[in-house]
Each structure stands twice: as C-alpha cells, then as structure tokens.
C-alpha cells in the first residue's frame, strides 16, 4: 500500500555534509546548520541538545522534510529525502512520526477522534481505524480518556495523545521536538519513559531537548549542537555545554 517502500528495508539515517542557510536579502547571517555529519542506526535513541539558536529545530525540520538543506544529503534507508517529489512527501511523513512541544491537537475533537483523524486523512479503512486507535491509546495509557476533549486533560496526557497520533501509522522513526517543554518534571519524565518504551519496540527516537535532567538520566547517545555545528557526539552522554 505504501508508496514509500524504501523505508521498509534496512533503516538508518545519514546526514552527509548538511548545511542550511536562511537568506534575508541584504543581510548576511550565519548558517543555521553548518556541515553536519551524523549517522543514526536502527534502534537508537538519540538526544539532540544545545542552546537556543543552535540549530535543533532546523535539523528537525530537515528530517521531516519541512525544509530542504542548502547543501548536503539526508539519506533515510539509502534514499535521499532532499530529492523527494511533492507527491511522495505524504507517504514519507506516514513513516516518520513527529511530536511537538505544543501538542498540535484539534481542540474540538476528542482524544479518540484526534488519533483517528491521522488515519482518516490517510484514507484508511474504518475497520483499520477501529482496530488501531484503541491499541495505540492503550500503549500510551490514554484509553480510559478516549472520549475526553484535549481541554479536559492535563498537559502530560495531551502529549501522550500526540505521541499516540504520531505512532498510529507505525512509523520507523519518531521525532520529538521539545516534547517536555510544557510539562512539569514528573509528567516530563513519564513522557520520556514512554519514548523509551517505544524505542525498545524498534523505533528510532530522535529527541530534541533543552532539559538537562532528562538527558543526564537517559544515558543514551547525545549530540550537542552549537552555532549550527556538532560540538560533541557521545554514545552515553550527558548534557554539557
């Protein structure tokens, strides 16, 4: 069914010489990303850290094909995603789940409907929706709240719903851009535990964060960005600036 069958094979992410410059006419500004080389293997949990303006968000945008790099290649399962045709993009996005700091849930839809919406707009059959949505909600521990509106649940619960929505297409890669940015430490840690559980099931998790406590406790790979460059890349790192 999926047009983006390349992602079904051996999965790894490779960024080769990736740079991104935003052009403002008449103003010379430093590159948001400058010659980034990163390789992420199957099953990895990678935290991308760095101060504001380090290039974390730009990197995430490049990874979900929201923007194209000025130079360089981004290979996912040996396919250069910078050369995807517009018609291939939706199929690519179904294989890459994304979670944001502000959840991006539709306020007038219930928890269940928010997750089901992701399948509906991708032309899934009703049986598929009825089967998948409760299973995913159960995985993130939100099945009991399925009929509540996003305004009736806490921030941590909303982020769980947004993770559920990102997972509903069974993506091979889950990208989380500051998922704990709006949450208190307890809720934040619960979300990170959920991401770890998802990672154990074989999904690559890429986590962009500011949160030192989380990164230190995770003891997984940490890539530190500063001024658009990779400053350090440690396999079991902590947050050092």
């Amino acid at each position, binding site marked *: 069914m999926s047009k983006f069958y390349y992602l079904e094979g051996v999965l790894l992410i490779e960024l080769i010489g990736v740079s991104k410059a935003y052009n403002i006419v008449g103003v010379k500004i430093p590159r948001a990303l400058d010659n980034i080389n990163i390789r992420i293997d199957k099953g990895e949990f990678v935290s991308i850290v760095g101060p504001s303006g380090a290039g974390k968000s730009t990197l995430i945008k490049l990874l979900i094909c929201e923007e194209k790099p000025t130079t360089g290649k981004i290979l996912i399962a040996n396919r250069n995603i910078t050369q995807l045709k517009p018609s291939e993009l939706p199929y690519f996005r179904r294989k890459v789940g994304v979670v944001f700091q502000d959840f991006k849930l*539709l306020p007038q839809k219930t928890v269940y409907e928010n997750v089901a919406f992701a399948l509906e707009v991708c032309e899934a059959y009703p049986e598929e929706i009825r089967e998948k949505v409760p299973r995913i909600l159960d995985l993130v521990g939100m099945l009991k709240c399925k009929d509540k509106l996003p305004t009736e649940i806490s921030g941590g619960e909303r982020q769980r719903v947004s993770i559920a*929505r990102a997972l*509903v297409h069974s993506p091979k890669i889950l990208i989380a851009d500051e998922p704990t940015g709006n949450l208190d430490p307890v809720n934040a840690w619960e979300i990170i535990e959920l991401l770890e559980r998802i990672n154990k099931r074989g999904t690559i998790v890429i986590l962009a964060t500011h949160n030192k406590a989380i990164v230190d406790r995770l003891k997984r790979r940490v890539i530190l960005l500063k001024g658009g460059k990779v400053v350090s890349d440690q396999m079991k790192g902590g947050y050092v600036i």
Partner: protein
Amino acid sequence: MNWIPITRITKLGLTNFWRNRWLSLASTLVMTLTLLIISMFVIMTMVINKTTDRIKSKMDITVYFNDSATTENIADLQQKLAARADVSEVKYISKEEALQIWEQTQKNQQIKDLITTNDNPLPRSLAVKATTPEKLNDIDNYLLSDDFAPMIHKISYEENKVIIDKLLAITAFIKKMGWLFSGIFIIVSILVILNTIRLAIFTRKSEIEIMRLVGASDRFIKMPFVIEGALYGILACILAFILMWLGVYVIIASLVTQYLGAAVTENLKSFFSSYIFYIILLQFLVGIVIGVGCSLFSIRKYLKV
C-alpha cells in the same frame, strides 16, 4: 475503487460549508444574483432576437397606387418586379380585396360601415416579398425611381424600416448592458468567493497543518475546498432557477395576463419552458466554473501543500 476518501473528502467539504455558514450564505447569494442577471439578459436577448426575426420574416414592401394609375402600368410594374432576382413573390391586391382585408381586421361594425363597395377609398397595391429581408432596401430604392413616381401613392417599407431599426438598436443595447452587468456581477462574486475560501483556509489552518504532518495527501487537503466552491455554484444555480421560475410564472405572467392577455402569457411560458434546459445548463456551468475556479485559485495561493 476505494470510496472512503471520496466520502470523507465530501464530508469535510460539507463541514467547511456549514462551519462558515454566514460566509457561505453570502457567497451563495452573490453567486445567485450573478446567475440571475446573466440568465435574465440571455433570456431578454433571446426574446428580442426572436421577435426581430419574426418581424423580419413577415416584412414586405407594399406599394400603394394612386387611383389615376392605369391597370396596364401596374401589371407592367408587377412583371418587372417579378423578374428581379431578389424578389420572391409579388401579389396584386385589388380594391375589392383590400376591402375584404379591411373588414376582416376591423371588429367594430361602425368603423366597418365607413367603407363600402360603392365608396371605397382603399388603394390598389402590390405586396412584394424579398428573398431575404436585407434585399428590401434595394427593392425600395428601385421603386423610388422617377419612372414610377407618378403612379405610386405610398411605399409602406419606409415606415416599417424605422421600427425594425429601432428594434435592432434596442437588441444591441440590451446585449451590451447584459455583458456589462454580467461582467460586473461575475467579478463581484469571484471576489466574494475568493475571500470566503481564503477565510475558510485560515480558520482551518491548524487542521491543515496537522493533516500535512500525519501524511495526508495533497488531494485530501485540497479537495474539501473545491467541493465547498462547487457547492456555492450548485446551490446558487438551484436558488437562481427557483427565483427565475417564480418570476416568470407568477409575477411576470400575472402582469402580462393583466395587460397583454392570456395568449401572450401562454407564449411566454412556452418560450421559457422550451429554453429551460439551456438556461439551467448555462447557470450550472457558470456557477461551477466560478465556484471551483475560485477555490483552486485560493488553494494555490494560500495553501502551500
């Protein structure tokens, strides 16, 4: 074929329409007005064209002779006219025949009694039919020559010509006004619909963002807006048609019956019903083209998918 996306897209389009119902209503009404004005001018032009055609086909030249003209001279002229290539028929009407026609056309007995066989001032005449109405002018010029002047009392063509020319001028004027008003209203409805669709896109911005994020195809994101635009067209077409039907069958029909008689009303109704299919088709096409066209344009401009 997978019908799920089609039903879902349609549902989204209908939801859009309903969510912005006041704007949708405004768009639909402006479009209705546009369709009504276009149809009105089309119908008016058709009626006038038909009338002019009918009058043109009935047009002939009638040459009335002085009583002093001799029968030989008249017969000579009749032969000369019949020999012309642009004349299709020449008919001689004697004084007696003219009287008969007079009696047939007058209903009032008192007026009828004014002319009798003994005291008959009605002139003899030749009714000349041309092969095409345009040729009448040449025939008229031929008759105006000095050779025939002494025996001719009057040529009727000169009088009709004024009426025909006036009719043609009115038709041309109405056509021009029709284009002008149709153009203005098409522009107004395009602007209103463009704005409505743009607002619909803005109110659904977050929804569209999420749709893209979770991998909805372009078609799935765009089509609801196209359906919304088409819906304006279809509803406007239905509304315009109902209003026009009411206008013709109730308001105009009663006025026409009151002032011109039931026969004219019947004519009008049969004319309307014989062209009904074309009118609906025209309204439908204009409605759909404006609605869908505006949607596609707005989507391209405001929705970079």
